[in-house]
């Protein structure tokens, strides 16, 4: 179950650049960078010495580099939303944060080359670029579709796109790509590109909607979920969601160690504020 051996380190901020609505942040993390796989995340203490925030914040690893001039690096894409992320994005180069990494499950890579579609919502695109590279290096064809409410909320850096055969954008307000939602274009992309597996990351509602589509086409859907996490390391049981196992039994699994990458078709979606009937121990 505990697949990664995580480490707690002092990570130095190397650079912090604003990109659209996000901050692209690069941290020097040393050798542990080599352990990170696409889908893994990091957990960072926020607010400094006299912070009133007692919990870490989780961020998907956008990219990890084993050896840069500054040693191993991890890169994050952070949206300044609340107190914690605003504090983080206000840091400057050479500031040091307390970081635990790598955490969680990673995207599964098929043993055979397959035709993969990567779907990202908002900053959910972050872990997909590293995944695209890896899939490409294994001979897969990779298509990508990214969506957000507005253009500034699509994170799609140039260098990230080099591994994808096609990139489709959607925005709710039409400021970039197709006006509409990701799920509007999904069937067409799946059909035209003869997609065999969908990888996704983004808001829970989007993941649920994607699952409806992939279930219909009966293709695999590996999604990285985002549940509120208190610890990120499996000890608090706050981040659970109901997932049906091979035995047909639905259990409340921890999205921080049994996830964030999960099989979309196994997740019992729409389970906020209720435990699905028949769940183990309900």
């Amino acid at each position: 179950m505990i697949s990664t051996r995580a480490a707690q380190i002092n990570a130095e901020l190397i650079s912090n650049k604003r990109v659209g609505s996000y901050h692209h942040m690069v941290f020097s993390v040393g050798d542990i960078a080599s352990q990170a796989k696409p889908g893994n995340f990091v957990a960072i203490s926020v607010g400094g010495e006299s912070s009133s925030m007692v919990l870490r914040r989780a961020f998907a690893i956008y990219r990890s580099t084993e050896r840069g001039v500054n040693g191993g690096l991890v890169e994050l894409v952070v949206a300044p939303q609340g107190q914690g992320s605003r504090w983080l994005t206000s840091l400057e180069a050479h500031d040091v944060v307390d970081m635990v990494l790598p955490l969680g499950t990673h995207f599964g890579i098929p043993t055979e080359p397959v035709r993969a579609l990567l779907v990202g919502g908002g900053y959910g695109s972050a872990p997909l670029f590293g995944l695209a590279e890896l899939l490409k290096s294994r001979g897969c064809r990779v298509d990508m579709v990214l969506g957000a409410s507005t253009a500034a909320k699509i994170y799609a850096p140039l260098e990230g796109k080099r591994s994808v055969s096609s990139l489709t954008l959607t925005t709710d307000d039409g400021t970039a790509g197709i006006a509409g939602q990701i799920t509007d274009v999904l069937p067409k992309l799946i059909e035209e590109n003869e997609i065999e597996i969908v990888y996704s990351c983004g808001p829970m509602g989007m993941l649920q909607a994607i699952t409806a589509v992939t279930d219909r086409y009966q293709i695999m859907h590996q999604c990285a979920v985002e549940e509120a996490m208190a610890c990120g390391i499996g000890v608090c049981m706050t981040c659970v969601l109901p997932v049906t196992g091979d035995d047909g039994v639905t259990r409340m699994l921890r999205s921080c160690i049994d996830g964030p990458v999960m099989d979309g078709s196994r997740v019992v979606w729409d389970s906020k504020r209720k435990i699905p009937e028949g769940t183990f121990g309900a």
Partner: protein
Amino acid sequence: MTFSFAADLAGAKLPNPILTASGCAGSGKELSQFFKLSEIGAVVTKSIMIKPRSGRATPRMAETPSGMLNSIGLQGPGVDYFLENDIPWLAANGARTIVSIAGETVEDYAVLARRMRNLPGVVGLEVNISCPNVENRGMVFSCHPETARAAIEAVRRNIGGELPIIAKLSPDVTDILGIAREVSNAGADGVALINTLLGMVIDTNLMLPKLAQKTGGLSGPAIRPVAVRAVYQVRAALPQLPILGMGGITNGRDAFEFILAGASAVSIGTATFGNPTAVIKVRDELSAILQERGFDSLSDAIGFAHREVQA
């Protein structure tokens, strides 16, 4: 003279007084990637119930100023799974284990106590009585002297042998001293102070209680003054009753506060969520502080804040 950091918690002999808090250390396995479990005084397990429990619906958590609310609802696989899997693993990994048990009826406590006999590596029992009594209008056991007594008596009668029994109390009562007295009379060898305070956060976007369960338990540094007060009060009134202190401990200075107030050992809960190695940090810092202050042993410092001083 060499400094002695050894702790005696109601009869449980531990190399140091730093424990995990129930429900805040998973099965132990998850933390063992960060440090060896044998390095701390003991691992306190999450509260074990007889049957598997799914726990509460999500959201189960809300961060609050210097604290958090949780309504996990005692999710767990039940006592059979626990005894088959967790206990052997903890023993094999050199952990001293204090098993926390929780019941919905007095009989549950009796049954669980019987199952706790002669387990490898288990050095004590924490009895979480901050659970609703399903037979008695859902009243929380530890909130009323009679139900608190009944649960602890059931454990005492059924545990057999030498295993220390530590009753874990809720702070949400008018008279925590009265409850402590009652559980002590009922056979508890010590008390764990404190469990979480009942709280609520309203999600101002949804305009609804943030937790699916509406209310949850408040923990973390925010509640530390309430916890220290409870420890001090119980120590003052019942100086012979050993106390496991907890509530918002994040560093050695915080732990020292509890020791001075009268705790024989301390548990670290919420701090572990913010810092996976919090228990090790607390252990090392507390040891250093005690030695800097010239204490020859942990036990010399226990309750030191109660001494009479000229104003």
